């Protein structure tokens, strides 16, 4: 006969099966309390997923656009007056060794209107630019419809409209018969551009040739903005010398910027907002954890008879504690897994609707599940200890 008393260990499947008792017998309550966790995790996963999908989209865009575009614009002089660039500045910039291309535009004082009957005040924010013919390549612009300016059209009253400009003026397709009123002259619309992410000011532009600008719009031949592409490895060096090169007399009056940085900076702003939303998700998760703890406390109170029975069947205090801890963990983990699925689903839906790549960092998924396990453990400890401390006779007396 046996002469030692040693409680048997439950195998892992039995531990899980016993731990899931409460979930099987009260499925609705299990679902509701897991729902809190699910919402918290879903919110966090979706926020991070959408943010990283947006960043993946930005990376893709920047990879396509290139990050080696530099923009040189006149700033203000010491007295706050708008400065200008000298006429030879474009040629000077071209002479910097790593510079591949350089082109210029000049913002004119003339405004563009749909007809000569529009009041002059309603310019719609549209800027009229005198442009070099080689503008499109450096800024990464493409023609959506019609043609770009040519040697032939540059001297005539012909205009290419930016993407937003065409919308504001209500012009859907270029046609020599479609005219816009610029300065005191009708210009034919020969082309419409796609949006230009690296030079968004061109979206609100009406672009005319240099000769036409000089002939019809009283252009003083001074460029206002230079766009230049440099070798990728020399962007910062070129940037350092651009001001002095473009305007040797007053380098401090020149603003040099890197448009791709502006896009990235916008992304950084988005990230601060993302942090806030993740924080809100964490609050939801915390509330969900409290819901699980509440469910477990009630469950222990309601199931005193079951606890007493299990003790009479030979369950040790440790096994009772383990049962309720496992139940809490399973409950939280179910919520966490559902939350991850929902969060990934939301991310996929939103990213797809925006035409972005779907990117959910694996660390977020793993981190979310680990967080739910931690919450389940914390939420379950007190009820489990309470269940284990219950004396078998008291437990059995409760019906």
């Amino acid at each position, binding site marked *: 006969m046996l*002469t030692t008393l040693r409680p048997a260990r439950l195998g892992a499947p039995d531990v899980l099966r016993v731990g899931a008792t409460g979930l099987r*017998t009260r499925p609705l309550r299990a679902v509701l309390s897991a729902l809190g966790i699910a919402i918290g995790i879903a919110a966090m996963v979706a926020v991070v997923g959408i943010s990283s999908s947006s960043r993946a989209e930005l990376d893709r865009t920047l990879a396509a656009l290139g990050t080696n575009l530099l923009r040189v614009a006149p700033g203000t002089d010491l007295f706050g007056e708008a400065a200008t660039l000298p006429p030879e500045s474009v040629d000077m910039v071209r002479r910097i060794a790593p510079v591949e291309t350089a082109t210029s535009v000049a913002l004119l004082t003339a405004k563009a209107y749909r007809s000569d009957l529009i009041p002059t005040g309603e310019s719609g924010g549209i800027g009229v630019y005198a442009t070099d013919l080689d503008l499109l390549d450096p800024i990464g612009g493409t023609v959506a419809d019609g043609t770009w300016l040519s040697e032939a059209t540059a001297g005539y009253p012909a205009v290419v409209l930016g993407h937003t400009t065409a919308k504001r003026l209500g012009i859907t397709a270029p046609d020599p018969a479609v005219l816009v009123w610029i300065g005191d002259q009708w210009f034919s619309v020969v082309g419409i551009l796609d949006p230009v992410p690296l030079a968004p000011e061109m979206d609100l532009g009406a672009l005319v040739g240099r000769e036409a600008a000089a002939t019809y719009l009283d252009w003083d031949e001074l460029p206002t903005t230079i766009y230049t592409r440099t070798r990728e490895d020399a962007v910062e060096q070129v940037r350092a010398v651009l001001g002095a090169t473009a305007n040797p007399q007053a380098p401090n009056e020149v603003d040099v910027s890197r448009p791709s940085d502006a896009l990235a900076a916008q992304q950084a702003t988005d990230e601060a907002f993302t942090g806030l939303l993740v924080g809100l998700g964490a609050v939801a998760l915390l509330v969900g954890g409290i819901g699980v703890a509440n469910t477990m406390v009630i469950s222990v109170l309601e199931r005193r008879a079951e606890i007493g029975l299990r003790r009479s069947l030979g369950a040790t205090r440790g096994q009772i504690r383990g049962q309720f801890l496992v139940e809490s963990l399973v409950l939280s983990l179910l919520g966490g897994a559902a939350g991850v699925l929902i969060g990934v689903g939301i991310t996929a839906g939103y990213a797809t609707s925006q035409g972005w790549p779907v990117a959910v960092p694996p660390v977020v998924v793993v981190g979310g599940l680990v967080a739910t396990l931690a919450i389940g453990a914390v939420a379950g400890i007190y009820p489990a200890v309470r269940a284990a401390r219950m004396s078998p006779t008291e437990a059995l007396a409760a019906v």
Partner: protein
Amino acid sequence: MSAVAVERAAVAHPDPRGTPGTGTPGTAPGDGGGPVVTLHEVSRVFPGGVAALRDVHLDVHRGELLAIVGPSGSGKSTMLNVIGTLDRPTSGRVLVDDFLVDDLDDRELSALRASRIGFVFQQFHLAAGVPALDNVADGLLYRGVGRRERRRRAAEALDRVGLGHRLTHRPHELSGGEKQRVAIARAVVGDPPLLLADEPTGALDTAAGAGVMDVLRDLHTVGTTVVIITHDRELAASLPRQVAMRDGEIVADGTLAPGGAGTVLAGAGGAGGAGGALGAPSTTTDEEASC
């Protein structure tokens, strides 16, 4: 975990079930070997000063079928909890299957309950929504038996209590008597030497109660020691030995032949020793009214 080895407090007795000549109803105390339960000067005083047990002496011998009988408040439930190691006495010694309960910690007591004691409760305590087979199989959960083996032995145990045709029924599909027989099957699925039943017929009508008692007598017939707590004098009188309690003390302990002398428990209509044979469930069980 450190190896827990608990010395038996007394020399092990031969297993009465292996001894020819035992196992007939009405076995006299001491016939089948030494006591399976010994209470020595046991008192249980609850906080507040209520003494549920005062200086109780009791030996329960292997193979016995006895009733602990008394009105509510007499301390019989406390006695059952102490015998079943669910409660510890305030003073005195308790031996169960030759283990001195005082020396055991929670883990050892749990192991003792798992391997040596089966419980049957008035309220059945079956898990709702769980088939009878799995309810019974849970009786072996804390003994380290694999699930397949648990279910196989559970089917056997259900067959033994006459419910071989009810394996997949859930508690709400069973009558009260059937529920209690499922609970009995759960208590004996691990073949414990000691079966403790707390008012097993208390929640049942007469016919269902008789069916349950038949099952308990059958178990006694094959050697299980059965202790039944009841307030029902008539029921107690139908059993070979009665221990009468009042105010935490044993006021009478005797064997009873119907109408016999030497007992304070002479009740009317006691039909002692009416147990059926194993595997031949009584016909009365088939006509239980459902609850």
